[in-house]
């Protein structure tokens, strides 16, 4: 980092501190105590840090944990106790399982075979990339999937240099496929276990792995064909057939079979016995990766992205702090004053704001900021079902289609040089708007039909 960058970041950090100072010095509004006021201050402080990235996101996460004890809101033991949470262990176990899968090389074989089946027609090939990203993101973090698939997709697209649109569509399809797929199960993104855990601890409502997927998969199934249609319409391809690339065939190794079996068994167990505790089953899956000799501890040390886990700590501190100090209720009452008491309108507004937030900051951060507000609203308006609000926010948090900063997957695929920022913006704006309506539509129809509200 250059000296100039360090100075800019330092100044941004000072500005973020000044936000806290303003809140500290300002009078406490009626209906809100000192703790609530300062938790709202911490929320604005967090928004500023998440958007500007004056500190790395993981560092922002643990700093947020340190603030309530400094400001006299919570005892430090209480704050750090938030970290001992099921979702953290689900995430760690999921990362270990993904590391085993990655090390075995099974992802490459599966991806290459998968794409071959979607083979020669460019439009179907783009659908193949979308489905590939989505299906892998059901089983592991969407960002890890982008990282694993990018060499394979880039290699596949190298033969079509005359068709710029096909390359654009193909690379964006990878990012979008992973984003859409990541909402499908609890394993797709860190925000999913966070939401489940937050709902469970705040309201006592437990959402199992199966329940999550039943609610989320309709959105995935609607969004994938829509995104595909957007891609092939906005970037019409002129290539008639994609040249077939010959790959050396090698026999499936024992390690690949072991890794694939463990992953598959874990996902099946999560679906069937998810009520025991998702983290419990995921820990068993992670253990199996060691027992069958797929990975060793060194692989785990390399594979766990600590930033996500630390950001999680900040997110849960923020959420719990805002709920218990009455800050969310106070903010919810303010929102109701302006937007009204119609639960359907409020739900729509929450989805829109979450999508806007997730476009400018990390998905987990956006969900962490919006979930407490959503829960506060459902406390003020009882007709606004708490599960519906929370799920809608958690799912909307995955839909960062338009900007590079919204999603590391967008940034990674962009950096290959296959498309430009304006290409992503061109399609992403439509995808965002459609995504908002799809979530809202599914929440209003399918979830009602399922008896969620």
């Amino acid at each position, binding site marked *: 980092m250059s000296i100039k960058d360090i100075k800019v970041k330092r100044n941004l950090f000072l500005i973020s501190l000044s936000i806290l100072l303003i809140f500290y010095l300002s009078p406490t509004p009626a209906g809100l105590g000192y703790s609530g006021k300062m938790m709202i201050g911490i929320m604005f402080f967090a928004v500023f840090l998440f958007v500007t*990235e004056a500190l*790395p*996101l*993981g560092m922002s996460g643990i700093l947020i944990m340190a603030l309530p004890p400094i400001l006299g809101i919570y005892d430090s033991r209480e704050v750090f106790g938030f970290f001992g949470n099921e979702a953290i262990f689900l995430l760690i176990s999921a990362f270990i399982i993904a590391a085993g899968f990655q090390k075995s090389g099974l992802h490459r074989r599966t991806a290459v075979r998968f794409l071959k089946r979607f083979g020669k027609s460019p439009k179907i090939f783009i659908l193949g990339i979308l489905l590939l990203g989505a299906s892998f993101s059901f089983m592991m*973090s969407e*960002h*890890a999937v982008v*990282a694993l698939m*990018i*060499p394979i997709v*880039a290699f596949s697209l*190298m033969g079509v*240099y005359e068709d710029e649109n096909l390359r654009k569509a193909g690379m964006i399809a990878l990012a979008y496929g992973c984003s859409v797929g990541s909402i499908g199960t609890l394993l797709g993104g*860190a925000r999913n276990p966070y939401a489940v855990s937050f709902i469970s601890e705040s309201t006592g409502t437990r959402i199992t792995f199966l329940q999550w997927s039943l609610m989320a998969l309709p959105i995935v199934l609607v969004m994938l064909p829509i995104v595909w249609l957007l891609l092939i319409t906005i970037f019409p391809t002129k290539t008639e057939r994609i040249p077939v690339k010959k790959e050396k065939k090698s026999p499936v190794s024992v390690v690949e079979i072991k890794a694939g079996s463990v992953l598959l068994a874990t996902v099946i167990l999560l679906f069937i016995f998810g009520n025991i505790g998702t983290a419990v089953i995921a820990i068993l899956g992670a253990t199996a990766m060691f027992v069958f000799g797929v990975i060793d501890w060194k692989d785990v040390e*390399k*594979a*766990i*992205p600590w*930033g*996500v886990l630390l*950001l999680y700590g900040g997110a849960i501190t923020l959420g719990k702090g805002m709920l218990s100090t009455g800050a969310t209720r106070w903010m919810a009452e303010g929102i109701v004053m302006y937007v009204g008491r119609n639960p359907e309108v409020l739900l729509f507004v929450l989805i829109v704001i979450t999508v806007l937030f997730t476009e400018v900051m*990390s998905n987990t951060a956006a969900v962490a900021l919006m979930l407490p507000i959503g829960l506060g609203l459902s406390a003020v308006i009882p007709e606004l079902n708490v599960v519906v609000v929370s799920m809608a926010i958690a799912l909307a948090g995955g839909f960062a289609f338009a900007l*590079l*900063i919204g999603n*590391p997957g967008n*940034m*990674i695929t*962009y*950096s*290959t*040089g*296959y498309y*430009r*920022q304006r290409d992503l913006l061109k399609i992403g704006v439509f995808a965002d708007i459609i995504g908002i309506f799809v979530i809202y539509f599914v929440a209003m129809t399918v979830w009602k039909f399922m008896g969620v509200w």
Partner: protein
Amino acid sequence: MRCLIPITQEMRNPNALKRAQILCDEIHILYVLDRALLDRMKRESAYVLDSETLKAIEDTVIDSQREEATEFLRAAQKQGKKVQLHFEVGDYPEVLERHILRLRPQLLMTDAFSRSLLSLKVPIWVDAGNEIKRCVFVVESVTKIRNLKKDFELLRTVCGRIQCDMGIFSKSNERSTIETLKRFAEITGLTGADLLCLQFFDRKSIKTERSFIILSN
């Protein structure tokens, strides 16, 4: 004529590449993978991916951009001109400056103007891709035209190669100059030029839809 065309992910310069096929004898394509882009990608992804994965992504990015650059070379070579590709990962302005010093191009060709180009010691053609029938050399004063012999020669070559008429326009208010120019304009009708050749950069003289060459600053 030796031309240098810088290319980045966001600046592909298709107009410049097309025009260079008519104008230049020797085309140098400088494909720069901006280090800032790689750093940004790593920064944005560092909290979700481990350093080993990030390194693997960086390698893939460099490979695919190198392949992209090679494709520019292939496309340019199809026209039968002598084309050389230079692929660099680094800070764009610094890489560009270094290649100007090393290759000594007579013209730097690009599609979009940026102020940072003004510090480069080379004439810059910002190509809007328009059809050029008339070009006008805008000078401070016609009386000093002798001092601009080198620039004048370059423009004569440029205008000759793209087969368009060339005129001179002065911004000074010397009476004799204005009279001369009026007569000149009447005869040649060069006032509505498609290509402006500027001795100095002047925002007012430049309309973005028109191509222009900045000679020195």
